[in-house]
């Protein structure tokens, strides 16, 4: 499958250049600091509460990581002039987008995996339900998948990596802030905005160790729609 070929090359690109490691290292450091200061700090808490706070902070850092990881996916190809190689090869545009997304997701999953030491620290000093950890990580990966797909769309739209990061961040903030719109609008619009909210409506159950099908479907749907839009952008660019 050509998408896997593209994903393999892209992933090796992340692993061979310093920028990928720098992104992971900086965000991991910040995540660790927040875990230490806010999740572990303050008054004594139950392990489940600490774990819930860990997932709360980690979800924010996962979104930030997805912006930095996705910004290079398609914008870099455009910036360095390698897009014609993909365009002139016997590939479908969806293979290009899917390959890029899979590489970004694998790298994001590596980052998420690296945060595992924090729940392990909770495990050493307290009681942790493995179901809670599994649900939280499933939530992080689904949230990361949706954010990364939005980032892939932003990267397809932008002509360079900086613009890609800004475009993706704006789209993600807009999706996150949908819950605010839900509070100031009337029904049925409030329900629509509430359902669209990237974090507020769909992540807290994972944070508490609960997996709802509607939340899983929401993140998968955002991923699909964003990747579909990115594919359309690539197709449209052939007309310009």
């Amino acid at each position, binding site marked *: 499958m*050509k998408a896997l*070929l*593209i994903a393999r*090359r892209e992933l*090796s*690109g992340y692993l*061979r*250049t310093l920028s990928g490691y720098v992104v992971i290292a900086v965000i991991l450091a910040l995540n660790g600091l927040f875990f230490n200061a806010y999740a572990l700090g303050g008054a004594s808490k139950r392990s489940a509460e600490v774990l819930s706070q860990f997932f709360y902070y980690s979800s924010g850092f996962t979104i930030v990581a997805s912006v930095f990881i996705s910004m290079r996916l398609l914008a870099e190809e455009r910036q*360095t*002039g*390698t*897009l*014609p*190689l*993909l*365009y*002139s*090869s*016997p*590939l*479908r545009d969806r293979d290009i987008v899917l390959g890029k997304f899979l590489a970004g997701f694998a790298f994001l999953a590596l980052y998420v995996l690296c945060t595992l030491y924090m729940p392990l620290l909770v495990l050493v000093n307290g009681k942790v339900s493995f179901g809670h950890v599994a649900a939280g990580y499933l939530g992080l990966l689904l949230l990361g998948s949706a954010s990364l797909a939005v980032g892939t769309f932003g990267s397809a739209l932008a002509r360079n990596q900086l613009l890609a990061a800004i475009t993706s961040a704006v789209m993600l903030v807009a999706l996150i802030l949908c819950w605010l719109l839900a509070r100031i609008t009337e029904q049925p619009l409030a329900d629509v905005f509430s359902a669209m909210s990237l974090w507020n409506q769909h992540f807290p159950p994972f944070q508490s160790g609960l997996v709802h099908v509607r939340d899983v479907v929401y993140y998968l749907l955002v991923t699909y729609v964003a990747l579909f839009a990115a594919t359309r952008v690539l197709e449209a660019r*052939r*007309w*310009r």
Partner: protein
Amino acid sequence: MIQVEGLTKYYGEHAAIRELAFTIGQGEVIGFLGLNGAGKSTTLKILGCVLLPTAGRVVIDGHDVVSNAHEVRQRIGYLPDVPPLYDEMTVGEYLAYVAQLRGVAARDTASRVGEAEEKTGLREVDGELISTLSHGYRQRVGVAQALVHRPALLILDEPTSGLDPRQIVEMRDVIRGLKGAHTVLVSSHILPEISQTCDRLLIIHKGALVAQGTEEELARKMGGGGSIEVEVRGDRARAVEVLTPFGAVEVERAVDDVVSLTLRASPDERPRVAKAVVGAGLELLRLDQGAGQLESIFLRLTHGQEVRA
């Protein structure tokens, strides 16, 4: 191999190319000549399935580039004006990746990469990172990626751009070596490169095709243009007298008894000119086709003026 009819591409209100029409046969090496901004790259991008045309039709090996692009892409190798390279890969890794991307089976990849490296003189840098290569080698890697899957049609956009004179000669040899195995369409604004490498020329100006044919055909169509450079040892007046029946004669320089002249005549006349010079008792030191013939044709077509051939 290629049929182009009424090909037009607009960027917004601006027409980059207008109503282009030409055909290219199997195995031909075609030079696509034009000034910067003439529409060469746009045309090649459409042929390379990178851009879609606004109007018109392009059929490559029986497949339309719009409705059957996937089939076309399996038959072409495209080098854009900037070689599409991934700096963090080695030459061998990059070519293997491109080969697989273009449908070469995994078991054949190593041999195809070796073959492409052989043709383009890249064997010695197989393990080098692309980021460490000189401009000349980067261009060669660009050509190698275009031919690694043995495409029927090679589209090379300015393959000698930015190369030094020695690298240009080497690249010209590489392109000549492709003849026979592939149909090659090579664009350039460097005239000698086109003249010495290609079987036939397509000249594009301001988005329109202004002429096509071999260099000699173009010279004939442009009013019998062409010149012969002659260098003889002997009397200057006698040399002019002998050459005048063939056309207008201009003495370039005369040092001692060596006279260099330019004769306004078709290069096809060279055997008869040689016979006349020797028959008149003059020593023939040099007889050559006028170097500036193509420049003359090109400038007349693109500027409406002629330089001395």
